[in-house]
């Protein structure tokens, strides 16, 4: 019944997508999922002091790129954090 009358869109598909992305980062890099989740949580914690964002939307990506100094391939960690608004520190 809840499903028929519920007005908000369910999002377990989105949850699956996010869990998978994290899983594949750790599979491909060989570092443990706990470590990556730890980085994500601490990043979110620090950033939340300055900006307002949905912690569920933080996306971590591990890619291979060419180093600027040498032409070696190195791993690069990037985070995408959709910001709702900057926290106005002076008002607090």
């Amino acid at each position, binding site marked *: 019944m809840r499903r*028929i009358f*519920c*007005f908000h*869109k*369910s*999002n*377990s*598909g*989105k949850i*699956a*997508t996010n*869990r*998978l*992305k994290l*899983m*594949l980062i750790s*599979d*491909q890099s060989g570092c443990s999922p706990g470590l990556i989740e730890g980085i994500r949580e601490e990043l979110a914690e620090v950033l939340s002091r300055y900006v307002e964002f949905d912690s569920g939307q933080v996306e971590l990506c591990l890619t291979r790129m060419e180093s600027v100094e040498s032409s070696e391939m190195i791993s690069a960690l990037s985070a995408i954090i959709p910001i709702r608004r900057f926290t106005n520190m002076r008002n607090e």
Partner: protein
Amino acid sequence: MSEVIVITSGKGGVGKTTTTANIGTGLALLGFRTVLIDTDIGLRNLDVVMGLENRIIYNLVDVVEGNCRMKQALIKDKRYPNLYLLPSAQTRDKTAVNPGQMRKLTEDLQEDFDYILLDCPAGIEQGFQNAIAGADRALVVTTPEVSAIRDADRIIGLLEAADMQSVDLIVNRIRMDMVRRGDMMSIDDVADILAVNIIGAVPDDEDIVVSTNQGEPLVDTDSLAGQAFLNICKRISGEAVPLLDLNPQRGLLLRLSDFLKRA
């Protein structure tokens, strides 16, 4: 020009064998001389899905060990003039064959066939190594589930490491009603996660169960899954076919309830 294609997935139960049966039958229907090889030694299944289980005399291991000639082991499907099956052995295991022997076997078949399809066992051990040894091309089957996609990613990595010339993805058992209400990953979500070409998506269709029960591939029926498989066959042969609209005709009430859910 003959092509050797392995159908693989990593995870079991995502529909490799059903996919092999339907794509093989579809390619035969399109006029290509096609042979299906069941490489799952010890867990023979493709013959059952094809409805050819009562016609097995010799098998893959017999051919490799020289107990019979290739022609004696190949089962001709009487319903489709271009279709043949090389069944697996049920009482042996994966170590009965090695990758070198599989390469030789597929090379021998290339003289007589346009398409050689290999149904790969689940897992990444010797059975997988045997199945991919002679293949030029791989079709990775997955379902829109976390575990299946994770395994598909691993398999794609292994195929690339083995220098597979071409790797395409088939998203099986997709349910558009669940995608619409946000409870299943969409084809685009899967494409985004696995950076690989999607050659087709097959809807979760009750007709698949019926066709497997009967041992008759559904690729030549007008079911939605049957059409999806036939489109994949056309794409394999190089024809450009647009993606099938997987949304069946729906009544006004259902569409209204969808609209309310989305609001």
